[in-house]
């Protein structure tokens, strides 16, 4: 079965989405991430979407839900690398990604997560 790989770096999980995901693949990623937070005892999740040229309401919901589930499991989620055109479109679409922290790139995202853990 097709899957998006999840990398572990210490207590952080890193996902780089590099394919145009269909909806089932997005749901699989949400489930996988939630499970890995528990099995890897992760305290932070970084979702890198710099390679995505669109985020529609379904992917947006998957990201919000993942962040909400992570929060309940005592992990913080940072969404990194959103392209400007995607941000413009998301706002016009009406999606505000409430409760999701963002950073411009992976490096800044890691800093944000480390700051929160001190």
């Amino acid at each position: 079965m097709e899957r998006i790989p999840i990398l572990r770096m210490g207590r952080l999980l890193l996902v780089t989405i590099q394919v145009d995901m269909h909806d089932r693949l997005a749901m699989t990623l949400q489930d996988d991430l939630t499970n890995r937070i528990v099995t890897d005892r992760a305290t932070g999740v970084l979702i890198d979407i710099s390679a995505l040229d669109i985020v529609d309401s379904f992917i947006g919901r998957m990201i919000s839900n993942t962040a909400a589930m992570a929060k309940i499991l005592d992990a913080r989620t940072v969404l990194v690398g959103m392209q400007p055109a995607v941000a413009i479109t998301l706002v016009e679409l009406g999606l505000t990604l409430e409760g999701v922290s963002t950073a411009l790139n992976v490096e800044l995202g890691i800093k944000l997560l480390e700051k929160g853990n001190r």
Partner: protein
Amino acid sequence: MTPAQGEAIVLPLKTDEDVVRLRKQVREDLIAIGFGLVEQTKVVTAASELARNVLRYGGGGEAHIEHIFDGSRRGLAMSFIDQGPGIPDIALALTDGYTSGGGLGLGLSGAKRLSDEFEIDTTPGKGTTVKIAKWKQF
């Protein structure tokens, strides 16, 4: 003046993968017409929302993509067609946050905001066609 239309490309919308194929095709057409990155992103996103509606609420269907011309203007028109249950209350369906199927309720209203032209033709029990168009700005 009725805009002239080219030949439509017809794509099936039966599976999740079809939605990905549609996004790719729409992107290619927008690039061919010369749309900028932000406009491309908006239209591909609108197309993705409407294609998902065909799949989730209409039980599958198809998309027609056509290049449109109006004098010196060029654009892209897309129709999303299903033979599903139809939309009983269009005004309600276009309300931000309203959903009949567990989504975010942004698909129709969001697609409308992201397009220049937006039309819904729906008959309860017969199906729904949503048509959007985007014109290239000079």
